[in-house]
């Protein structure tokens, strides 16, 4: 039992908010939800739509075929004709669309949204409430459910919105397109990937956050700025990404757990600061939201083209942690781990996301303890023993130097972007240069030991020894691959950590597999290129790089080829 609803209209008409309300309505009926948002990089005009999918399992992909089409303008019909099934129910604004605009033979209900909104002296955006009312009536969702969801989610003009929704509700008729209740379970929260990343960071003790706004990770900045008081965060929006990264190192120096967020273009400006953070051994988490490039590319669309950029950014050679969560639960748990790892190993730590994960909506289950388990990820702090004076870059067995932060009595804390000695004083001596480079690289070895205790490679789908074909995917392709793996009897392997690459676990997951199919949202197969350096290779690659994520149908068709 599952359900797909598309709502569309002009950019700026409130589609985004409406799709979230629909997701929460479906969520109330016991479905787990996923919302795909498609919007252009403009503030007003252009076509915007969302597809809300509900299922009786955890999902993170949309389906091309829809059960409901909620059309606020003409484009909605024209652009989404191919998504209609015989049973699709179309609800449209009869003041904008005439019955002859509606494909012949389809079930439809025209509601005078514009007229009703005018009669209620409401602003045009409130047409959304009207169509949501009509949708509830047509799909058999009880008025009380809508009333409750509106009360929980609308903070402005609630009464007027409810009144308009009621008129939409009364105007429509019950149809046979009923959405049945899926379960009696308590609904789980509906969040974006950006919300989940933010909450994960906060849970791991985030104290400061800096960002220059950039799609698709601006949501992290907005969320944390909104929650700054509640969680005692210092949230700063500085003059550029250069300042963002350098400020982050300043916060880390003063002992504040800090993160930044950006996308590829902003990350270009951060790379000098990234390399500095590695040299200075200042812990910083970078939330990197990929979007189609090169250059400005498609700002509001999706892709997975920055894996190698994250792997190689910054001059010099240094270790870094990179995790690519595949849904909100993973984003929540691994963002926390990323912050812990940055602090334990005093190295840059990345949460690699994309528009699909960052701006899609998912159910979040914070009780699930499945991702992080036994690893001890506390930072190593200086014990205050001052016989030899504090040495910020003390050479130790693990390469990790004990941390002291300013101000600490009797500790002079010296940070340096030049090669330096243990005390942090500049050096050009060959011996110390080599020792210090070895020390910094050594940390990776111990990080790998910690990561061995975590689920860095996930296996889904057909886990039997008989499964000879495996789909290999990363990041937001997780959901679509799992559903199709299960449907088609294929194993699904998802490396979650990409640096240091979990070579042994990946090899283990591939045991018995004779054919691998790599599924990626890029044109060159970036994961495939990475694993090739470890001796693995793809038998087939399914690459999509038109800015849109795979739908279930897209990928199924490709897998069957």
């Amino acid at each position, binding site marked *: 039992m599952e359900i797909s609803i598309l709502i569309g209209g002009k950019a700026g008409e409130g589609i985004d908010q409406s799709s979230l309300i629909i997701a*929460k309505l479906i*969520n*109330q009926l016991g479905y787990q939800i996923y919302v795909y948002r498609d919007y252009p990089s403009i503030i007003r005009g252009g076509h915007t739509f969302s597809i809300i999918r509900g299922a009786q399992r955890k999902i993170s992909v949309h389906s091309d075929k829809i059960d409901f089409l909620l059309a606020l303008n003409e484009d909605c019909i024209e652009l989404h004709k191919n998504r209609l099934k015989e049973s699709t129910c179309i609800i449209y604004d009869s003041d904008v669309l005439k019955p002859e605009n509606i494909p012949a033979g389809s079930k439809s209900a025209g509601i005078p949204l514009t007229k009703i909104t005018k009669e209620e002296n409401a602003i045009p955006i409130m047409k959304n409430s009207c169509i949501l009312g009509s949708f509830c009536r047509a799909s058999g969702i009880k008025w009380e459910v809508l009333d409750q969801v509106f009360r*929980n989610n609308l903070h402005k003009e609630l009464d007027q919105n409810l009144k308009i929704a009621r008129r939409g509700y009364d105007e429509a008729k019950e149809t046979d397109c009923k959405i049945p209740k899926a379960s009696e379970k308590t*609904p789980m*929260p*509906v*969040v974006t990937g950006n*919300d989940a990343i933010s*909450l994960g960071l*906060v*849970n791991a*003790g985030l104290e*400061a956050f*800096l960002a220059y706004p950039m799609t698709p990770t601006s949501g992290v900045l907005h969320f944390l700025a909104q*929650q700054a*008081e*509640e*969680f*005692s*965060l*210092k949230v*700063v929006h*500085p*003059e*550029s990404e*250069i*300042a963002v990264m*350098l*400020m*982050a*190192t*300043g*916060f880390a*120096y*003063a*002992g*504040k757990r800090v993160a930044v967020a950006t996308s590829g273009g902003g990350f270009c400006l951060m790379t*000098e*600061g990234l390399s*500095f953070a590695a040299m200075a051994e200042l812990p910083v988490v970078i939330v990197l939201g990929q979007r189609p490039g090169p250059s400005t590319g498609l700002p509001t669309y999706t892709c997975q083209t920055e894996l190698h950029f994250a792997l190689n950014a910054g001059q010099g050679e240094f270790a870094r942690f990179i995790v690519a969560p595949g849904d909100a639960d993973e984003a929540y748990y691994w963002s926390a781990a990323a912050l812990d790892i940055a602090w334990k190993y005093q190295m840059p730590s990345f949460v690699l996301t994309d528009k699909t994960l960052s701006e899609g909506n998912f159910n*979040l289950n*914070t009780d699930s303890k499945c991702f992080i388990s036994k690893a001890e990820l506390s930072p190593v702090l200086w014990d205050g023993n001052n016989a030899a004076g504090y040495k910020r870059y003390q050479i130790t067995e693990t390469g990790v130097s004990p941390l002291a932060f*300013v*101000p*600490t*009595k*009797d*500790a*002079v*804390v*010296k*940070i*340096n*972007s*030049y090669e330096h000695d243990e*005390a*942090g*004083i*500049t050096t050009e001596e060959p011996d110390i240069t080599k020792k210090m480079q070895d020390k910094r690289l050594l940390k990776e070895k111990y990080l790998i030991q910690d990561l061995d205790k975590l689920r860095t490679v996930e296996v889904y789908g057909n886990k039997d020894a008989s499964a000879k074909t495996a789909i290999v995917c990363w990041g937001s392709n997780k959901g679509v691959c799992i559903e199709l793996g299960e449907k088609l009897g294929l194993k699904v392997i998802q490396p979650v950590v990409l640096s240091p690459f979990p070579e042994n676990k990946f090899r283990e997951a591939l045991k018995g597999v004779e054919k691998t199919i790599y599924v990626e949202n890029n044109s060159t197969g970036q994961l495939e290129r990475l694993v090739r350096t470890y001796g693995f290779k793809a038998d087939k690659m399914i690459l999509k790089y038109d800015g849109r994520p795979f739908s279930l149908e897209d990928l199924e068709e490709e897998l069957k080829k």
Partner: protein
Amino acid sequence: MTDLNTSAKNTWCPGCGNFAILGSIKAVINALIEEGTPKEKIVIVSGIGCHAKIADYLNVNSFYSLHGRVVPVATAIKLANPELKVIGFAGDGDCYGEGLEHLLFAAKRNVDITMIVHNNRVYGLTTGQYTPTSPLGYKGRSTPGGSKELPINPLEIALASGATYVARGFSNNMDLMKKLFKEGILHKGFALVDVLQVCVTFFNMYDYYNKKAYELVDHNTGRFDDAMKKLREWDYNMNVPIALGTFYKKEDTTFDENYHQPDIDKNKRLLKIQELLKKYI
């Protein structure tokens, strides 16, 4: 007196104006410690260039950062812990060239840090190219026919951007430097002290500055218009008298004091997250 020396060997050229800056700041830091500022609450930040070696030569908390990036680092350290006294050292190529944007924003925000700019009007460490404050026609290795652009007046830019303390020193006048550094550090708000620091190797201006420089007397530091007029007297190009001292000083709210951070029980984060998530249903 606290010993502020380190084991690092000093590699500035003999006669370099940086020695006088180092000597002055040591005296000021010592005075601050004697007057009750704990040494661990003093943090210096430097960029990259000859000036920046000061981080190696001073036995205090230091952050030897990147070319042009002293200001964002210093800003963040102050935001992270407003109890710290954060003193940034930068060069003119560093702070007025590659990092100019940050300087404007720090002034705009009136963040409570002090920037001391070693303005020798030449790139020393990269062996003698023109900088944003070199005079028109300056012949350096990148401008063998003479620079074709006028210099900027950094003090004018800082004041126009909102700096609340603006001063100019000279590396051949240690008493004045000590006075300005201390004033700048104790000033609540963004302070810029531009120091005409002489590079003996690539742009030796000792004789010129000795002839042209004079200390401000009877100047009203509380009036923006007076300050602007006075610091425009010399545009870093014309052959006119060069005023030294404090041009402007004004108390105002600072960026860092506007960051309110309530104490929260850190063990309750998860509980608070779960409470918050109830609104997401």
